């Protein structure tokens, strides 16, 4: 089963990468773009048939490894 997670910086943490992308887009002529946030995406192949188990494992992994709770939030998606 494939399962994915998106890890983003918490709102109160400055996201310089997103800021640079935003600025670059403005310079390229995209005037209607107001805000850009950048994050990380992880896709995992897991030997598991039960969706709930897979989700639980992913959540555990995010907490233990993939996200740093001081600065980051995460969301999980089944593919």
């Amino acid at each position, binding site marked *: 089963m494939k399962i994915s997670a998106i890890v983003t910086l918490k709102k109160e*943490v*400055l996201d*310089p*990468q997103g800021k*640079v992308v935003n600025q670059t887009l403005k310079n390229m002529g995209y005037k209607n773009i107001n805000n850009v946030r950048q994050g990380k995406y992880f896709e995992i192949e897991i030997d598991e048939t039960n969706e709930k188990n897979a989700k639980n494992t992913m959540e555990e992994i995010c907490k233990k*490894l*993939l996200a*740093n709770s*001081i*600065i980051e939030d995460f969301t999980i998606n089944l593919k």
Partner: protein
Amino acid sequence: MKSAVIVFPGSNCDRDISVALKKFQIKNEMVWHDESDLPKSDLVVLPGGFSYGDYLRTGCIASKSKIINDVIKHAEKGGLVLGICNGFQILIETGLLPGALLRNKKLRFISKNVYLKVNNVNNKFCLNYKGKKIIKLPIAHNEGNFFAQEKILKELEDSDLIAFKYCDVNGNTNEASNPNGSSKNIAGILNVNKNILGMMPHPERHIDPVLSGDDGSFMFESLLKSF
């Protein structure tokens, strides 16, 4: 005095620090990350570099190494721990020091000499900086932008746990003298018991006057003196 330098896959300042320790007559042993026990040591050093390529988050994967449990025990018993650059990042990921190290504000790797204000000389790492308010050391990192919640920043400041702050040649700590966007210009911090120091600058690279400075020497002399 005895020290142990932990070598992770991707560490690359391990040789530099061992050269420095030897130069100041500290008996050093290199310890592979996969060992479970530390040799008897007074000081444990987590060296600079790119452990595990700095993939995922800097210092994160190294903080899950086998040896780390013993490093934590050593620290809890009051043993000295010094984390330089990637070592600082690892200390933060293990939770031995608070906060987070984000990407440099300008999103670029920065390698240059910077001025530092030594804020706290009452610890075993910095004794010999007494009277030497402003020093010069090299930095070389991509993620040195120290971040912590207001509460923690205040605690650090109130308890005098900020060891070094980025400044200019006259000692001004402001945005212009802040190379990477760190909160309060923080370049290095101590834990409450002051036996753990994490810092982004590299003292081990400035131990010889033929290089562009030797302000790193004072730190090794301090360590030696305290034993």
